[in-house]
């Protein structure tokens, strides 16, 4: 082995030693999220002043897809029932997590609906913005017109609650899908 190779080997060892002894930062090297893009504040919605969505905003270069999604085609369909609606919503959350390689969206119904209708990293509307299940306040509603309650158990588990035929949440006829 030549002298050059030998010296190179020694330098490599010293570099490894220096690396081991160098001070390290403890968890401050970077945040889990990429830098977020500044967005203009939204105008107040019909339900009064709205605050920020806790989900990361869509990247500025994410083209909001106009292509219709077929995932929500049968939501609130007369041919189905509340059980098929809940299963379909569950599948939409599964599809969302798979597509964005992340966790469920969080927040109130309106925040989550906003994400599922395109305010996400892909700019993809898992549910079309003009889906008849979405009311004027931007909330996703059950087949009786009452907004769903999305209970965030964990990043991968979303409990979905419908108020049921009595239109009243937290009563005996509520229909709930717990994953």
């Amino acid at each position, binding site marked *: 082995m030549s*002298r050059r190779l030998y010296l190179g080997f020694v330098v490599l060892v010293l570099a490894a*030693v220096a690396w081991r002894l160098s001070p390290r930062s403890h968890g401050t090297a970077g945040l889990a*999220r990429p830098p977020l893009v500044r967005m203009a504040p939204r105008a107040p919605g019909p339900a009064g002043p709205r605050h920020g969505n806790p989900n990361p905003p869509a990247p500025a270069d994410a083209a909001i897809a106009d292509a219709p999604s077929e995932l929500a085609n049968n939501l609130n369909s007369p041919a189905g029932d509340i059980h098929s609606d809940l299963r379909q919503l569950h599948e939409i959350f599964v599809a969302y997590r798979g597509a964005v390689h992340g966790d469920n969206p969080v927040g109130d119904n309106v925040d989550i609906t906003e994400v599922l209708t395109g305010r996400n990293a892909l700019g993809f509307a898992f549910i079309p913005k003009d889906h008849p299940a979405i009311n004027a306040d931007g909330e996703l509603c059950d087949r009786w017109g009452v907004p769903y309650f999305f209970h965030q*158990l964990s*990043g991968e588990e979303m409990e979905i609650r419908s108020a049921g035929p009595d239109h009243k949440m937290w009563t005996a006829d509520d229909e709930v899908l717990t994953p």
Partner: protein
Amino acid sequence: MNPYELSRRKFIGNACAAVGATGLLSALAQLRLIGSLAADASTSTDYKALVCFFLYGGNDSNNLLIPYDTSGYASYSSQRTALAIPQSTLLPISPTITDGRSWALHPSMVEAQALFGAGHLAIMANTGTLVQPVTLAQYNSGVAALPPQLFSHADQQVQWQSSIPDQPFQSGWGGRLADMVNAINSNPKISMAVSVAGENSFQVGSQVSQFAVNPSGAVTLSGTTGGSINPVRYTAQQNILTQQDVNLFQAAFGGATSSAIGASNTLNSILNSTTALKTTFPNTSLGTQMQMIARMISAAPQLGLNRQIFFASLGGWDLHAGELPAHATLLGQISQAMNAFYSATVEMGVANQVTTFTASDFSRTFNTNGDGSDHGWGSHHLVMGGAVKGGNIYGKVPTLVIGGPDDTGRGRWIPTTSVDQYAATLASWFGVSATNLPLVLPNIGRFATPNVGFLG
């Protein structure tokens, strides 16, 4: 032969030497760290214990600390509507530091009111998970780095217990704290990290393992004592577990299992030999957990422990419906169990050396969903002990107005104190120096005031 020419044998020899040197230097670096930590430890020979009491599900702290002055209560009542507690039933408190507003506790917290008045209980206001300080403008504009999965139970529980919300979970801040101070325990017979509420993230560390006990004592194997066969079975099990001629995994498993069995037996033996406490604990889930912790504290000298970290918990706080009666029951349980536990520490003469604090997933929305409340963010917490500068509210109680300067929507308050600051104040009291604080709480440097000041 060229002196720089390497034979294969020489190359392998040099490589091994290099790897060995790197390993040695790595070990030296670790020793340097341990030495630094031991510097914290070596100054302390006294006894101290931290008790984390986790409220699983998200405590509605908007009904734990309630505005009491006329205008404050009127505003509270008009916004909480069905969740408002009648003013006439509230338990007023008189914090010595005031922002001009008057406050009261929930009517179920009679004992807590007395502890607050006596200076043994403090309230840490509006605390929550934060990646860094956040303003409402930053939140609304989307530029703020936020803890991932805000409002999700499992994620917020883990983030509260790790205090590193922006990183995948690796360890809890209680576990890291135990790793750091464990050297103070010169001859520990069991782990210094004990849970009376099962496995948790809070006590996950690198060196110190969490040791689970139940409210009646250490968990032991059944069928190992009494009769003629049981002792034989136990001996046979021990022989199998401590076999030497097995592979590494079997040996590690056998060693850990044997060690756990031994520790459990030791603990039960010591617990049975300690003098029973005169303090009466409530016969509730939390009451029995706190009683067990008190017994463990009384056994600390025999266990060879100068530092102990405990974990207790109570579930049922996720009150989307039927909140008022259920919340009253839960807050009553807390108040009674904490009071009994404080009395027990006084009886044992360690009131100044034991600090108990609450934690929870999050608070809840200030407005109601009709029969309960939904997931919130910043919440108020209780800190109790003789070393606590009690009778005060620390931090900043938010402006309790939906759509106000602290509201992200529906009365989900932006925390004005981070979990890091709350934990750092407790860790500092426990003996961690300011220099070593980032080893327990890596994000603490992002917050201007590491120590919130509720401990002397």
